[in-house]
């Protein structure tokens, strides 16, 4: 993984830039010494690190505006960051760029119970929104696994998913309005604090969501609130083969049921987990599905019956249904502990998030077994089966020379297999730097150019989070004059980083 060459002239101006930024945010909120910058060197992908030029923590939307305006004038790059839980390197700092951290913008500004909307600042951790409205019987639905830490601003940047997005949708489906600041410091208000507030305008809010901090810095978000489902029950279903478990996924959806969550764990994950939860899984079990159903009590009881019948028909060898909230939590604990359990099996692991049509699950899982042999690395599978969102856990040892590279190649092969099966490189983690160089496998030059043209409309100087998402930097000045046909791009031989 290679990043664009840092601009030494900018780096040489570090002290003057720090001084200028301190005048905007106050002297305590610009971090320039090595020791305090170090924790910001990486995000959720610790394999990629860079020391940010400076770390700035603005305390208001106006300060964000001023910081961006200042950096825009000086030609300094900006990398926005929330809590730094990105699993694709989206918040990886640049050595010649300012890391703009939203931690101080952490207030729930308003809760409108009757119109069911909350206005929040970007640095609010996801879980805090639900906590702020739970006394009203309401919640914010999207629940990425990182929700205790990851911020709503980061969720918007990555269009975060989560276990329950099968039924309730991803972040983009729950955002009603966005206030954002362009690189020039100009503030734009998109949509608003009610359903339909964006009707009749170009869906700029839609394209900002999931844009990985390349288009604008979000300073306020209006999110939809939903009533908390009355009950939730989970069914644990064991299968003697991976294929049967996969087929059961399609069968459940085929009978017209959209579970609140539908998760898959293979035998390796179960073995790792059973050590932690001190519970044995049936020896015949090769794969386990967890299917959560929610709604009113009457409805859930009916659905539990239907899903159980489907599972038996698909050859399930054992079914466990939660009857109390405590049992539900206990059954889910195996899934929640899966990644830390695997972490105890190996020194390091690497996890990607390619997504495929559900009926291709067996095919792609079989290919993974072959890849494991090819690279000589062990792996396990624990993923969101309901929406075909794979999470292969590739085990390696960073201390062994060449192991990380092998793990990365294994991961890339899985992603390529996903695209070849009609799927996509990323279902919820984003492209960032991690999958950037694979974009050409999913998209043609024309597709990518069209996307980068959008970048030019927002950030023509390419100062916001450059080096992420696309395998080449933006060439806004040239795009206006370029014309591509049949995928043949002029300057096709320019260097990629």
């Amino acid at each position, binding site marked *: 993984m290679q990043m664009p060459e840092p601009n030494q002239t900018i780096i040489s101006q570090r002290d003057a830039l720090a001084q200028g930024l301190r005048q905007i945010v106050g002297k305590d909120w610009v971090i320039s010494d090595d020791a305090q910058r170090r924790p910001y060197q990486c995000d959720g992908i610790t394999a990629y690190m860079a020391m940010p030029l400076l770390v700035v923590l603005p305390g208001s939307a106006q300060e964000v505006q001023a910081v961006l305006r200042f950096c825009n004038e000086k030609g300094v790059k900006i990398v926005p960051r929330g809590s730094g839980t990105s699993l694709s390197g989206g918040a990886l700092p640049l050595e010649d760029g300012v890391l703009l951290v939203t931690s101080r913008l952490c207030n729930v500004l308003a809760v409108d119970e009757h119109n069911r909307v909350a206005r929040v600042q970007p640095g609010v951790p996801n879980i805090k929104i639900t906590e702020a409205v739970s006394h009203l019987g309401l919640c914010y639905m999207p629940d990425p696994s990182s929700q205790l830490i990851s911020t709503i601003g980061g969720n918007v940047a990555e269009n975060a998913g989560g276990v329950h997005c099968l039924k309730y949708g991803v972040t983009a489906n729950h955002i009603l309005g966005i206030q954002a600041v362009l690189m020039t410091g100009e503030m*734009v208000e998109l949509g608003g604090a009610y*359903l339909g507030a964006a009707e009749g305008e170009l869906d700029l809010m839609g394209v900002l969501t999931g844009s990985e901090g390349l288009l604008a810095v979000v300073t306020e978000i209006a999110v939809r609130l939903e009533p908390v489902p009355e009950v939730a029950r989970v069914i644990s279903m064991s299968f003697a083969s991976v294929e049967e478990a996969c087929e059961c996924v399609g069968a459940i959806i085929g009978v017209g049921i959209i579970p609140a969550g539908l998760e898959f764990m293979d035998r390796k994950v179960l073995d790792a987990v059973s050590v932690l939860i001190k519970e044995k899984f049936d020896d015949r079990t090769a794969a386990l599905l967890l299917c959560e159903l929610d709604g009113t009590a009457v409805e859930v009881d009916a659905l539990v019956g239907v899903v159980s019948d489907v599972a038996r028909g698909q050859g399930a060898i054992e079914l466990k249904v939660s009857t109390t909230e405590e049992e539900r939590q206990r059954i889910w604990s195996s899934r929640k502990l899966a990644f830390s359990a695997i972490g105890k099996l190996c020194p390091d692991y690497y996890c990607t998030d390619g997504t495929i049509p559900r009926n291709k699950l067996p095919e792609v899982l079989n290919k993974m077994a072959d890849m494991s042999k090819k690279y000589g690395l062990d792996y396990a599978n624990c993923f969101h089966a309901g929406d075909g969102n794979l999470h292969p856990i590739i085990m390696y040892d960073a201390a062994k020379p060449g192991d990380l590279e092998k793990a990365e190649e294994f991961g890339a092969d899985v992603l390529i297999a996903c695209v070849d099966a009609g799927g996509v490189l990323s279902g919820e983690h984003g*492209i960032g730097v991690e999958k950037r160089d694979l974009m050409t496998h999913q998209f043609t030059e024309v597709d990518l150019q069209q996307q980068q043209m959008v970048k030019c409309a927002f950030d023509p100087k390419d100062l916001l989070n450059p080096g992420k998402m696309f395998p080449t930097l933006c060439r806004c000045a040239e795009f206006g004059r370029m014309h591509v046909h049949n995928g043949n791009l002029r300057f096709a031989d320019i260097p990629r980083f």
Partner: protein
Amino acid sequence: MTDTQTTASMRPATTQDVADILMDAASRGEPLVVRGNGTRAGLGNPVAATRVLELGGLDQIDFYDPDDLVIRAGVGATLDEVEQVLAQKGQYLPFEPPRYAGLYGTNGARSTLGGAVSTALSGPRRILTGAARDFVLGVEGVNGQGDVFKAGGRTMKNVTGYDISKLVTGANGTLAALTTVTLKVLPAPRAEVTLVLPAATLEEDVALFARMRALPLGLGGLARRVNASGLCELLVRVEGTVPGVAGNQQVLNGMLATRGGMVVLEQEQSRALWAGVRELDCLNAKPDELVWRVNLPATTMPAFVEQARSAGCINRFFVDWAGGVVFSTMRGVQPEVDTLRYRKMAEKAGARATLLRAPDAVRAQFGAFPPVSAGVAALAARTRTAFDPAGILNPGRMTVQA
């Protein structure tokens, strides 16, 4: 009420034909009207162009995978056909796309899937299941330079690159001539009933809607209208599994008992009723009347409606989305004056007022869509240039030229 001055239409059958036409038009800077079959051509501002690019011929269904809840079709596939294909497997388009054929005096059977995506109109179920934008997984289209591009994909979750699919949804053909769209579909609810009860004041009714929505009852429609007998009534659609609906109906019965006079419409009756609500039938818009849609917070709706009625800006109206949208007619006596007044009123209330139907001259002058701030307008213009540098795709459809 369609685009004026057009004399010729081109009806390509393949994506490559669309690309050839657009490359040719771009080279001459010739603006084009881009549409499906033109059944909703009255929506948006009139486009000054002499030729029409009609995409209704791209009408194939590429694949439909019920177990994967996904369908991909040419933009010209009719909504009727798509909905029929889905219904055979017990599935549907959850955003309930309206045709507005009655409104525009066109043939709704020819309304296309591409038109539904491009106009991003969503029906009564939006409060429960989401809008058109929430179901577009991927698109293929041709930009204003004649380049064929694709975006998104066919999987339920996808964060690979910018969400161009959302951007083109609701762009009314101003960014690209879409050629195929891939949509997420859902199993249709097995059971539905509608509770019909007498209306009270707007304030009381909105408060009641809020109380009902506070419970997780799966309410896929909450509207207030004047029925054929001239009585004002509330419509409550309950959807889900058979036992689920029965259970939720019981909860609602308890909640609504004090209102009295409740009538229950089962399955087919309920479906027919909501198809009419979706099409704004209960407005009974007369040919010379203007038709408006105002989106606003439900809690501010009653005061807004009262004010607009006493000012003569609302003639007849009905309320959908639990109070979050008002559809209304306006007398066509002094449309320019009233349009300006109504828009100002909406702006003051923090609402967005869209002129769904009006004479060409009125839409050309005031814009069918409510204005946005200068900054957003400039950003939108730059975004349009990113797709269509020569400005040939439905120029001015969404914005009034200064």
